[in-house]
């Protein structure tokens, strides 16, 4: 049951919940504008700025006919006056039907959901969780592949700190996925996630570059390798061009293959890829609006029909 429940972590939902959200997101895509949120107020509390995510949520609410209150960075709110997170959430939950929050402290959204009188959607709590990103990734995968089952997913880049790949791995592990992890040694997929796959009997392979495996992929999920993650800048210089996807690398890939990226991109996908049919990351961002519409409707118990 999703209704009236906060969405803090991808682990709050099970396989049936994912599929229910994706089905509803399809309906939202078919009919993106409605008025079913009339009279409902959503508070978007962004304790750290994330323009892209905030606009996506606000677009979703607006297209459903709801209203928005909130702030886009803590600097403009009572938080700077030293108000505790608990007090902010308790106060704001009096003014709205749903809280969407982003906060740099890990676990802040779980805590907020425990003190809030209304459901909370986590729009990112530090390096921890960003479940609506995962659900829009699932939506994008199912939409382009017509299924979530038995796919080959290549994850590229920062697999150690990238929360999007960790959550996507957890969600896709419900669908008999084969994983390939492509990363520098410094940024390998952490052991606990590999153990999770082993416990489920799923196959995964680790690579230092992706030259030979691209033809196997149904989905290539790109992430950014950040310089700050390396203790020795020389190590970064050595690998910075290894994890870049270029148009000429796509020649041998499957016709159904699609490239995803949580955005913003820096240089890990060259711009000549953008015009390729297999580049999907901008549509993926649009799918975020439909998916968030579906999540909001499900939590508020609003019927899309």
């Amino acid at each position, binding site marked *: 049951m999703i209704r009236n429940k906060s969405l803090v972590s991808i682990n709050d939902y099970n396989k049936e919940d994912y599929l229910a959200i994706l089905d509803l997101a399809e309906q939202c895509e078919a009919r993106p504008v409605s008025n079913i949120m009339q009279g409902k107020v959503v508070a978007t509390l962004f304790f750290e700025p994330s323009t892209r995510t905030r606009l996506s949520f606000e677009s979703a609410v607006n297209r459903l006919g709801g209203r928005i209150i909130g702030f886009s960075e803590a600097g403009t709110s009572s938080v700077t006056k030293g108000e505790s997170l608990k007090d902010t959430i308790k106060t704001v939950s009096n003014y709205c039907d749903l809280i969407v929050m982003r906060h740099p402290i*890990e*676990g*802040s959204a779980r805590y907020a959901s425990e003190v809030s009188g209304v459901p909370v959607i986590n729009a990112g709590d530090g390096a921890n969780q960003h479940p609506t990103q995962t659900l829009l990734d699932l939506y994008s995968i199912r939409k382009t592949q017509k299924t979530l089952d038995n796919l080959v997913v290549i994850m590229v880049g920062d697999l150690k700190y990238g929360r999007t790949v960790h959550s996507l791995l957890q969600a896709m592990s419900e669908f008999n996925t084969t994983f390939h992890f492509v990363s520098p040694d410094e940024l390998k997929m952490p052991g606990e996630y590999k153990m999770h796959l082993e416990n489920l009997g799923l196959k995964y392979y680790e690579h230092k570059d992706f030259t030979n495996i691209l033809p196997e992929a149904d989905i290539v999920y790109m992430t950014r390798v950040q310089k700050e993650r390396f203790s020795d800048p020389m190590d970064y210089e050595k690998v910075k061009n290894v994890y870049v996807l270029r148009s000429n690398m796509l020649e041998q890939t499957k016709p159904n293959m699609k490239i995803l990226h949580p955005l913003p991109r820096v240089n890990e996908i060259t711009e000549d890829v953008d015009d390729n049919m297999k580049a999907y990351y901008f549509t993926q961002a649009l799918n975020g609006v439909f998916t968030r519409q579906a999540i909001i409707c499900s939590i508020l118990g609003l019927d899309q029909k």
Partner: protein
Amino acid sequence: MKKDRKHLSVSAIKDGTVIDHIPAEKLFNVISILGLDSIPNQITFGTNLESKKLGRKAIIKIADKFFKETEINKIALIAPTAKLNIIRDYEVVDKRQVEVPDEIIGIARCMNPKCITNNDSVITRFRVISKPRISLRCHYCEKITDQEHLEIL
């Protein structure tokens, strides 16, 4: 004769609790976690005693002291092998295996410095995901605190 000698090493108590099978190197942790260094009760302890299971074990006898469950949980985290004997009038009236509960509330610290529990006045809460080598998953930040980094509050 041999039995009597063993008795002498740690003297008997009339009423109270005997905590046995503490890994020897954890003795002083257990004393400090339970606050035994600041209670008025009569306490005797022995350490580096032979144990088939642990190699060297420690034992603590606390007169007129009966532990609450939350206190026992604290021992379980640091010395999961420990066993409690409840003594009334020199007789063992109850034996309790110290067990790590499935959920730990307010005892351990989350090792993630960016966790809300280390940045706000939020009581820590964990699911125990492995025992006897303890591994805790934080209810808030979802990060794992392992035995090596376990810090008792």
